[in-house]
């Protein structure tokens, strides 16, 4: 169902989709994770689908997969601020691990 929604904006690491009542921001690096719960993301203070990723030690960490920004309170430019912050974070991580050869 979410797959069919129109994409308003996309980056290397995110989509923003046009839901009926929400602008939905998706983290592309979390694709395929099982949704274990939907609850408020404390950082962004909006409802989010959450899953769990296990680290090298086996410890599970809750991660948000997609965030639902109510159209009553947010417009696209406000959601874009969060999307661009996410894009910047992942771009920086990629440069640390797989820097492009500019020589």
């Amino acid at each position: 169902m979410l797959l069919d929604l129109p994409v308003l904006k996309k980056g290397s690491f995110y989509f923003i989709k046009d839901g009926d009542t929400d602008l939905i921001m998706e983290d592309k690096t979390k694709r395929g994770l099982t949704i274990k719960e939907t609850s408020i993301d404390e950082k962004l203070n909006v409802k989010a689908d959450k899953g769990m990723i296990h680290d090298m030690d086996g410890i599970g960490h809750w991660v948000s997969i997609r965030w639902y920004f109510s159209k009553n309170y947010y417009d696209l430019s406000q959601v874009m601020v969060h999307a661009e912050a996410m894009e910047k974070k992942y771009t920086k991580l990629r440069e640390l691990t797989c820097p492009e050869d500019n020589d």
Partner: protein
Amino acid sequence: MSYAHPEVLVDTEWVSKNPPNDNMKLVEVDYDPVNGYQKGHISGASLIWWKRDINDPVTRDIINKKQFEALMSKNGITPDTEVILYGDFNNWFAAFVFWVFKYYGHENLKIMNGGRKKWELENKNYTTDEPQMTQTTYNAQPPDEGLRAYLFDVSRILGREDSVMVDVRSPAEFSGEITAPPEYPMEHAQRGGHIPGANNIPWATAVNDADGTFKAVEELKQNYESKGVTPDKDVICYCRIGERSSHSWFVLKYLLGYPMVRNYDGSWTEWGNMIGNPVEK
């Protein structure tokens, strides 16, 4: 008809009525103790953290004899102690630890049928109090290599009619569609698929969906024998990192009584990463 070795299982009801004592220890084995043991565990249970306590901290291997002896000492276990294991993730890691205990010759060992899953379904109590253990002196036996398969053992039995490989992973992993679910980004391999000739009998086919307890012996026999996994063969179980396969190893060796079953703990994260290893899809 009962299991070949019914003495290796206890049920949750028995554990709830028989708290651990000087001669009997209860040990929770977790893959994720932060979301398991630390949030709550059965009263009197100590913790074995699979990653920290059962694996060598540097080399990819299980702990050596000396490390095992230190772990037993820390948990107040002597060679004569009756040990009951249970844990998170459907008892996969409890089964792995059962396998390691047997590898180092511990005799009096049981698994709580259903693990944390069944305990929680029954709304039984947990505590966050951690028991104080008195250190013991533990002298382990030399490793029983008859329980463990290495890469060269697997290579040697490829194509042999008197041997059979049991791949206990999901069908999607077996077919090579995925190498690991996205929840486990550290457990991927360079190639997807399975060891040539292996039978796909997922671990979950050995348990009851509702509560994670083991299926009855007749159902288990049907599950394995119908796919050519019979007691007259040399059986090797594998999965991705060796924990789900130790669960099926436990079923075949102790519940069905197969005489020759080994766990290949290197599993797909070893086989699927080695250059030149044959892979079937």
